[in-house]
């Protein structure tokens, strides 16, 4: 088996590239969407939202860099970041739904992570969007990994 050369497209580069492109679109939309919530609508991000942002924003840059030319190793950097972000998203979602109790905290000016700030169409919440995005990212990156690292 031949070792892949850095920066060289994999054998079935075309469809693999589309996977990374899709991930990049998703990460970019999530980034702009979260910025829309905070900067345009003025919804302050809670602490857990910040951690999810921290693991979402770099994906935009890493994936973009990995697309030109297609670097199959991009998944090695992007996937761990996405998995950690997914962990925060799951934790946040469970907290939000009340499956995990939020420790009693003194009232402050900070934003509570369990407060429902936005419900699109009555049922879509921000933590739900986050968990869906991260899950899809991981699925797409795993498909890419399977296709390129046999």
């Amino acid at each position: 088996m031949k070792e892949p050369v850095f920066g060289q497209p994999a054998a079935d580069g075309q469809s693999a590239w589309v996977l990374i492109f899709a991930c990049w679109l998703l990460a970019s939309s999530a980034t702009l969407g979260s910025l829309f919530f905070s900067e345009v609508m003025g919804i302050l991000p809670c602490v857990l939202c910040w951690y999810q942002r921290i693991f979402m924003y770099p994906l935009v840059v890493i994936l973009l860099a990995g697309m030109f030319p297609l670097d199959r190793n991009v998944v090695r950097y992007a996937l761990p970041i996405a998995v950690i972000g997914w962990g925060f998203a799951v934790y946040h979602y469970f907290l939000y739904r009340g499956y995990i109790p939020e420790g009693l905290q003194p009232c402050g000016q900070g934003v509570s992570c369990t407060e429902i700030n936005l419900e699109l169409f009555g049922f879509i919440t921000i933590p739900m969007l986050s968990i869906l995005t991260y899950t899809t990212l991981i699925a797409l990156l795993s498909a890419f990994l399977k296709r390129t690292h046999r």
Partner: protein
Amino acid sequence: MKKTFMVATAGVLLVAAFIIAAFLYNTQKANDLSNTAYQNAEFLVRDYSPTKGDPGAKVTIIEFFDPACETCRVFYPFVEQLMEANSGQVNLVLRYTPLHDGSDYVVRILEAARLQGKFWETLEAVFTSQPAWASHGQPQPEKLWMYLGRTGLDIEKARKDMRSPEITDRIRQDISDARQLKVSKTPGFFVNGKPLVQFGYEQLQALVESEVRNQY
């Protein structure tokens, strides 16, 4: 080449969608704010609210302010300039929005100073000394007393007066009015009942000038 084009197009489209959505959202919000202010006009001014300038002026700037807010401090001279530039045509009404820790203490001092007819002098001193008493991590509003010597305020009396329950009611009323009018940040301006939607010097100046033109 085709890929570069695709990614660039997608990027441009995403950013364009963001900008358009922000524009639509802001337009919608501006309409909502104007409607809220229009429907809640009776919350804009209370009979006890501090007023400056010609009472007969046809243009009234209403400012919801927080004594600990830096932007309020920076804006204050600018608001005064606006009144001077349109002398006799523009007056000012202040409303309290103590959002920071320790701000309500300072509002109490201001109200106590008003009983002695020293409100505006005290406000001046409050803003000048703001960096000393209003640090966000650790506000120390008691420090303010040290800076009030030159205002001619009877400090002993003010310390007593500031505990009056009437002041508590006024603060509560102002905060509740601010909420009704959807003022969530300070300074919050209304000119003749019209909210300042896009915040900024030029925007406020433009709003005041357009009202002056309408009224005179």
